[in-house]
């Protein structure tokens, strides 16, 4: 079994990457908090219960630290150098042969898959599939966190370095198409790299997106009620999953017969006369090691801790999403999209996005503008500026005490098609609407210029205390030839049920 596979199968890689390495000794760690008032009295005067609470496995971050130590022990025991695996991964993306091609060596590209798998489990990379398109989205802040690079710029941080702000707001995604019938003909990228990324044979690159988001000024006048209210309204599922995994891991160690003795010994050592200064840090470090010894003897602890770490990551992302709107009313994003569409020249889209949310969350506004350019004109005289778009949406959801609740929404979209559609038909294709094969690559202009305007008004009705909502929408469009609607004006309604509410235990 290869080391990278072992890492994945044991879950050790996940544990290792989700915990920050210590820089020196134990003083850098947020657990245990040696500066806590518990340690300020003379050693013999320290309260043993308080010492137990601060150093024991119930303290914030304690299980994460134990997980990190277990992972490091496992890696040391197997002489695994994680940096080497990462380097192999990088080389395989640039130079490696496709694992699906004949005679290829799959060693290094499997390392790529392993590293990506670890990152994916830790929430640093998300994969979604729609039809034959697979999209990998990188959570850049989480990736930097996994690699232990730089000082974190948390959502609640009042001041961050410029680099920290850039990392916090960055995201990137790559789309790959695994269907040769609908995929663009060429991408210019290494097929081996794409295969390693997607895990499928002969995928084709269909686009990527880079986005950088910035917050406006942090709202510094929050009340406790607003803060508690935002957390109360947060989806219950990530909370319950996080708590369940945390309790499972904590109880697994706490119920071990060896744990009370380890805690007893630890507390006694921290009340010894020499438990001050650097010696105190060493003793605390030894305490944590002794707890890790206890944890190591628990059957299946690696999987239990891996589940805890994973659910913690999911919770953190959901919490930041819930609190972001509370802290920051104004949000800005810049985005670049590169699309490699079937039978069309590649296109670049530049987009600006603005979002506003009122303090109470009752009113939201979103606006964006973008421009799409052809990256190549395929020899035609068409304008390089393909189109310009603008959109705005307003949402109003009053906080009502009545049983019948409602939310209003209005949106408007404008697109000006400045250049005709440009299709590139490959030599293997037929002329449109015929069975006449084309002799070679050909460019076709479609008469698609002109403005498109689409507007929609929507009201969503719901009954307080239920998970059923009824959206009713009216839509109008200035033309229908390039949108999916059959008529210029129409209405629709539906009934939706929030099944995620079934996961809430309350």
């Amino acid at each position, binding site marked *: 079994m290869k080391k990278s596979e072992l890492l994945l199968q044991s879950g050790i890689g996940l544990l290792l990457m989700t915990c920050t390495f210590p820089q020196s000794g134990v003083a850098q760690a*947020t*657990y245990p*908090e040696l*500066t*806590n008032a518990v340690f300020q009295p003379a050693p013999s005067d320290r309260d*043993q*219960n308080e010492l*137990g*609470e*601060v150093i*024991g*496995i*119930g*303290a*914030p*971050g304690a299980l*994460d630290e134990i997980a990190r130590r277990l992972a490091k022990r496992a890696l040391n025991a197997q002489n695994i150098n994680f940096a080497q695996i990462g380097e192999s991964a990088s080389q395989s993306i640039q130079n490696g042969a496709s694992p699906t091609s004949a005679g290829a060596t799959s060693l290094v590209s499997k390392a790529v898959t392993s590293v990506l798998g670890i990152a994916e489990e830790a929430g640093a990379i998300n994969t979604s599939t729609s039809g034959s398109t697979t999209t990998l989205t990188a959570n850049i802040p989480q990736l930097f*966190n996994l690699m232990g690079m730089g000082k974190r710029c*948390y*959502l*609640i*941080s*009042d001041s961050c370095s410029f680099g920290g702000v850039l990392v916090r707001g960055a995201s990137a995604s790559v789309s790959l198409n695994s269907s040769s019938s609908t995929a663009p003909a060429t991408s210019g990228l290494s097929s081996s790299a794409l295969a390693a990324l997607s895990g499928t044979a002969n995928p084709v690159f269909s686009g990527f997106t880079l986005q950088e988001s910035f917050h406006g000024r942090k709202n510094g006048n*929050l*009340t*406790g009620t*607003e*803060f*508690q209210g935002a*957390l*109360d309204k*947060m989806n*219950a599922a990530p*909370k*319950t999953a*996080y*708590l*369940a995994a*945390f*309790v499972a891991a*904590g*109880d697994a160690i*706490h119920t071990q017969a060896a744990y*009370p003795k380890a*805690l*007893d010994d630890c*507390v006694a050592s921290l009340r010894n006369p020499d438990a001050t200064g650097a010696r105190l840090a060493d003793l605390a470090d030894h305490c944590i090691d002794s707890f890790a010894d206890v944890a190591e003897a628990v059957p299946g602890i690696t999987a239990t801790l891996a589940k805890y770490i994973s659910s*913690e990551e999911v*919770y*953190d992302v959901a*919490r930041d999403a819930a*609190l972001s709107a509370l*802290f920051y009313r104004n949000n800005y994003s810049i985005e670049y999209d590169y699309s490699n569409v079937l039978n069309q020249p590649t296109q670049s889209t530049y987009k600006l996005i603005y979002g506003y949310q009122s303090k109470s969350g009752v009113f939201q506004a979103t606006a964006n503008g973008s421009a799409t350019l052809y990256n190549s004109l395929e020899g035609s005289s068409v304008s390089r500026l393909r189109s310009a778009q603008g959109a705005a949406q307003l949402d109003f959801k009053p906080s009502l005490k009545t049983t019948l609740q409602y939310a209003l929404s209005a949106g408007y979209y404008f697109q000006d098609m400045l250049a005709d559609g440009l299709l590139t038909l490959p030599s293997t294709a037929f002329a449109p609407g015929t069975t006449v094969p084309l002799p070679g690559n050909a460019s076709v202009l479609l008469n698609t210029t002109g403005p498109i305007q689409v507007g929609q008004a929507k009201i969503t009705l719901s009954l307080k205390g239920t998970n059923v909502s009824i959206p009713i929408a009216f839509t109008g469009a200035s033309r229908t030839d390039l949108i999916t609607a059959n008529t210029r004006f129409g209405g629709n309604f539906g009934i939706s049920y929030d099944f995620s509410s079934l996961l*809430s*235990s*309350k």
Partner: protein
Amino acid sequence: MACNLSKSPTLDADRQGIIGATFQITAVSPTSNAAISAASYGKTTLTASPYEFTIVEGITNLATIVEGDKLNALIQIQEVCTGGNQTLRQFEMADPDHTASSLWIKGIKAAGQ
């Protein structure tokens, strides 16, 4: 209500209380907003305030997820009591990504139970 949790005399639990008594917890901070995001005790999991539980027999994990809105703020988890809350645990919000903590509570029988 009066405080129903007291310090455990032994290290096998952090706090103890009479079986059947209830307790309510909250989070406070002298320098920032603080709030409980979720808490569980025994078979009860709550994801919105108020966080009130009934003490059960045995040693049971009271797990809480507590959030603050300022980095490095001192956070206290308190039992809500008439005449003044008592602090069950305090810590610095040094790493907002690790905000879960446990207190093991021992349910003991009242005299005559």
